[in-house]
């Protein structure tokens, strides 16, 4: 595994831990299809949450949130629909969350969470 993938994996682990503390139920991680990948699929009550996790070691190249542009957001919404079709589920209540993890390795990673974007 490359270093950047390791960092991403580490960030996703932190994000999942964080979502669980919020009382969300983690349904699936790293679901892939031809259109792309969903980092985390979770349930917040009866709302299906499609979560994108962005991890950075520092803010030198911008904040993780800034890496999620309009194209990426649109794709996340499409992936949410694709996931429902794949699982043959009807989940009318869906939202996309973005989670930013900044971990400089100093032992105090910062996790920020934006609910229901785009």
């Amino acid at each position, binding site marked *: 595994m490359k270093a950047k993938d390791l960092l991403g994996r580490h960030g996703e682990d932190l994000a999942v831990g964080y979502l669980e503390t919020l009382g969300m139920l983690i349904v699936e991680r790293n679901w892939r299809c031809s259109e792309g990948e969903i980092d985390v699929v979770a349930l917040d009550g009866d709302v299906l949450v499609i979560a994108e996790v962005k991890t950075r070691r520092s803010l030198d190249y911008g*904040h993780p*949130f*800034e890496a*999620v542009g309009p194209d990426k957001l649109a794709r996340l919404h499409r992936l949410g629909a694709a996931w429902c079709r794949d699982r043959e589920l009807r989940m009318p209540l869906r939202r996309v969350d973005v989670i930013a993890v900044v971990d400089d390795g100093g032992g105090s990673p910062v996790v920020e969470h*934006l609910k229901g*974007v785009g």
Partner: protein
Amino acid sequence: MALGRTWSVALVGLNGYMVEVEADIGQSLPAFVILGLPDAALNEARERIRSAAKNSGIPLSRRKITANLIPASLPKRGSGFDLAVAMAALRAANDIRPTGRTVFIAELGLDGRLRPVRGILPAVMAAVQAGYPDVVVAQANLAEASLVPGANVSGYRTLARLVLDFGADPQELALDFEPDDADDDPGASGEAAPCPDMADVSGQGEARRALEVAAAGAHHLLLTGPPGAGKTMLAERLPGILPDLEDHESMEVTAIHSLCGLPSSQVQLLRRPPFENPHHTATAAAIIGGGSGLPRPGAASRAHRGVLFLDEAPEYERRVLDALRQPLESGELVIHRSAGTAAYPARFQLVLAANPCPCGKASGKGLDCTCTPIMRRRYLARMSGPLLDRVDIQLQVERVSLADFGQGGAEEDTASVARRVRDARQRQVQRLGPLGLETNSQVSGRVLRGELRLAPGVTRILDHSLERGILTARGYDRVLRLAWTLADLGLRDAPDANDVGQALALRQATAAAA
């Protein structure tokens, strides 16, 4: 509460309107939106503000920032809102304390320096009038902004220094950054060239006299004569013999020139009457003001309280000349464009210069002239009757004779003529002050034939001309105005028949020749 509020000023022409800037930070992906009809320059402020804040050590929130400029329906232009938007965004993030009624007007550089903007003088005047005397501007604008009486202006060089004074945490701020002011001074051109002296004009006694009368009563002037007679030379010397501007005039003139972008080395109240000398290919928009979006002042407004000199007047487009009729009557130009209407003052003294015909040789006996009579008539007819009717003094300037040319240096200099002009102006203020007027050229026909009515014997020659149809009713009034100025220069309390006769001669010189 993630909401910040600051104040700034939007200029529409010379009128400033207070603009409230709100900034809201929303829980959403990073974005920066500016609402309230921003133009391209103001929309680019988003990038300037983000970089300036980051490089000042006080980065903006990584969330969605929405800035709203109120009233939303008023179009906002230019970079002067940068600072107000930045301060509102920083306040919304609680990085600084509330800024209250302080007004912010400055452009931001990417490195966090505050840059000067145009039109700071009218903007600060508007803020003070609206009851917002505390104004923050760029250091390079401080001198100009401080000209406004009653304003409490502070100048800053960098955003970091400014936010420090508004309670930002000094730990992270880039306080050791001190930009060099010289960088902001591209237009430094040194002192304005001094006005040329009357002593340089050889001979031309009649023309010198006409120039003095024009200056004393603020009368418009037409000079016709062959090339090389000295028409341009005379016109350029008119501003020199005009009196200094009064305080309120000085503010008006400085405000217009501030809007056009004063070189910062000249940031002081303009005390001398301006002189505008546009080229004869100038368009109507260049002379009376215009441009896309909100209209900018043209040469006529830049010549406000000074001299607008149109050399080779018949070469101008007729449309352009006729566009001057409105400001000649009202002293104001109202210009409509898509983004709004602007009114600029334009109470200038008009000086027209013209050759007698296209080839320029038709003066005197005109034996060398190659123009046909039709060509000659058409040439001068390009200056329309209604325009010339507003020109009090119409003078023919002849080539200087050898006798006059030989004795150089014997002529009166600008200072002595200016002294007589000043005295004549004072007499006018004393007489016309109670009527709310300043110069003879402003007196209406009703007043001339009412409060200032002359004895019937004095105006006999005029009545005769009017009867014979040589003078229009408006022309009659113009001659009376000139007669009053001649009396003022001669230190007489009212014009006598001689003054009236001279006035008629000054007015009719070309009319008789044409």
